[in-house]
């Protein structure tokens, strides 16, 4: 007699990858959830999970050392258990749930393990830190009853070249004591972006292909991330023109799009769905986002226009935005508020947050100026508004600050509230 008992498959959700048959040069499709975000990639079978995360999704927190399973730098969670990302081919993980160190905590709300590592100087060069964090997260979650004596052995799967073991053990032990029932779940696994790279070329060495990669179907619904945005801001602009002149611009989406620096509408799918492209360059970073936008609200009477957009660049940088424009009639003309929530993932998110905030704010200011110009002239600004260039974007915010200090006040009130996460 065989007793066929239901057996739990560890803490993570079980998954059964779909059948596949691919030649040596064929890309294989793989769908995984990475830090709470569903992604779709198309990769040659020999690309490891570590390389897929780093090169295709821009999540470079997962480090790579030996690439054959010895050093532990590449440790991530696969369905809730620590595993070596260099010993897994990404294609094997169809349907899997992956958490990388980026998913563990947020800069303003670190995971207790991250805090403890900082407090105890458990990181020197920091190269091994992501591996140790993910390995110890697995340990304290799956074996919360582990003893202090067992820690050195249980953490022996990760090597620290700086030999910071003593402090690492202290940090993990302190977290263990503070959370006897198991440590809190990863704190940064909200949906952050949704456009995967389905249908995208072959491997990480592909150059950016600006025209072929328009993000999937334009009529797909855009789902905004649940977590806090990377940047939230409100720009208020006083415009010396009556409200209906301003709405003359807001009503014409094509005209409006041309007011957005670096942006271009490439397709109009109807029903408020559009495809478009936006270029951003900051110093050596040059990104071209292909994406989709959707008008959710267009209410001239209430003075509200709300649009959401998502886009991704070929390097895996992803962005989503939720923008609301509101207008109020004033004695002098119109006050326009632009409220924007911007969500960034991938390599763009590695910018200093403050810089990314400055860049975005600068773009919205240019946008507001362009809307003013278009409303005044009834025409699109002379040619598409120039893509924000390296120098102007890096220096303009600084210049602006200086000007503001000198000017005190002026025509534009900057209520720019910049919330950094």
């Amino acid at each position, binding site marked *: 007699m065989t007793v066929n008992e239901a057996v739990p498959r560890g803490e993570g959700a079980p998954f059964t990858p779909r059948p596949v048959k691919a030649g*040596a040069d064929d890309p294989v499709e793989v769908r995984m959830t990475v830090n709470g975000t569903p992604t779709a990639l198309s990769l040659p079978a020999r690309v490891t999970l570590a390389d897929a995360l780093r090169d295709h999704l821009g999540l470079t927190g997962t480090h790579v050392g030996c690439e054959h399973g010895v050093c532990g730098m590449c440790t991530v969670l696969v369905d809730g258990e620590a595993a070596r990302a260099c010993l897994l081919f990404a294609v094997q993980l169809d349907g899997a749930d992956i958490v990388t160190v980026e998913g563990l905590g947020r800069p303003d709300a670190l995971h207790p393990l991250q805090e403890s590592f900082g407090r105890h100087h458990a990181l020197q060069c920091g190269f091994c830190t992501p591996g140790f964090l993910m390995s110890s997260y697995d340990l304290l979650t799956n074996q919360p009853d582990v003893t202090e004596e067992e820690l050195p052995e249980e953490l022996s799967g990760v090597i620290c070249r700086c030999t910071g073991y003593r402090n690492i053990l202290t940090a993990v032990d302190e977290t263990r004591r503070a959370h006897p029932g198991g440590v809190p779940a990863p704190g940064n696994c909200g949906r952050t972006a949704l456009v995967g790279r389905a249908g995208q070329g072959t491997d990480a060495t592909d150059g950016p292909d600006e025209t072929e990669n328009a993000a999937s179907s334009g009529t797909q619904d855009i789902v905004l991330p649940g977590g806090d945005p990377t940047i939230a801001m409100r720009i208020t602009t006083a415009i010396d023109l009556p409200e209906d002149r301003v709405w003359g611009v807001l009503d014409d989406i094509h005209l409006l799009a041309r007011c957005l620096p670096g942006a271009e509408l490439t397709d109009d799918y109807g029903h408020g769905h559009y495809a478009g492209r936006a270029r951003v360059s900051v110093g050596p970073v040059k990104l071209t986002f292909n994406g989709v936008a959707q008008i959710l609200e267009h209410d001239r009477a209430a003075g509200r226009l709300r649009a959401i957009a998502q886009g991704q660049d070929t390097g895996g940088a992803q962005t989503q935005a939720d923008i609301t424009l509101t207008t109020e009639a004033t004695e002098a003309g119109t006050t326009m508020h632009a409220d924007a929530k911007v969500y960034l993932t991938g390599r763009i998110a590695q910018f200093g947050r403050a810089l990314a905030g400055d860049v975005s704010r600068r773009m919205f200011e240019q946008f507001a100026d362009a809307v003013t110009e278009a409303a005044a002239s009834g025409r699109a600004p002379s040619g598409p508004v120039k893509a924000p260039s390296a120098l102007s974007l890096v220096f303009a915010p600084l210049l602006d600050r200086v000007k503001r200090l000198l000017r005190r006040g002026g025509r534009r009130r900057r209520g720019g509230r910049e919330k950094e996460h």
Partner: protein
Amino acid sequence: MKAAPFAYVRPSRLSDAIAELAETRGGGKVIAGGQSLAPVLAMRLARPDTLIDINSIEELGVLTRSGSALHIGAVVRQRRVERDPLSGSVPLLRLALPWVGHRELRSRGTVCGSLAHADPAAELPAVACCLDAELTLTGPNGHRRVSAREFFHGAMTTELTPDEILTSVRLPVAAAGEGFGFAEIARRHGDFALAGVAVRVRLPAGRPEATLTAFGVSDRPVTRDVSEQLAAAVTDSGEAPADRLKGPLSAVADELVDTDGDIHASRDYRRRLLLALAGRELSKAYERARDGAEEVAT
């Protein structure tokens, strides 16, 4: 380094996997956990033209217990076995698993993959040999069953033909009055053993029966009946202390170590390790068997 390109097939049925493997005419490799295969591919020590991923074949993910055996399918991960209450019925497996690499490797590595890989210093092949486990090999002509002691031919060579898949292993469930021991010495926890032992002791009618499997000291796990040696070490008061076992075991230890030694450990050093480990673990297993037996008797 990165793996050379390979074709990739992930069937959902065993028969398809067998057919795919046959189609590659020896150029294909099965991938289970990949924890041994991926490094070999990354270092380009192997360049199979096709990988056959067996992880979506449901029937290979089965972990069940029948009356007398624990059945472990080919894609059952080591860490799952480690945690599953069912595997408590095979104490030797439970004793050995924590020694297999690190937690992060056991999350993905499979029990059968370790057997198929047949590293001479690996723990699970020794467990299978010590318990005389039964392996099921499936090929184009159907299933055949092979005893673990006949499965390992040498370092990384086994009874598997290139068109066969090791579909499952069956390990005997411990009976009352059996005791086990497992230990190894490695340079660092999680590394392959310089020398290690798996032992099984039973006391039918009070007379000791003992099996010793050594690993890391030859090109495959080696198993000996050491009942006589254990009996010779038992004192009048029914103890078998480790130091009394060393004398009787020393000839066995000498004979079992047939590696020339390497930069990490000479042949002599491995003999001394083996002797120390064998004495200690046999003594423990004997105690466990005796205490268990007493418990059952009263």
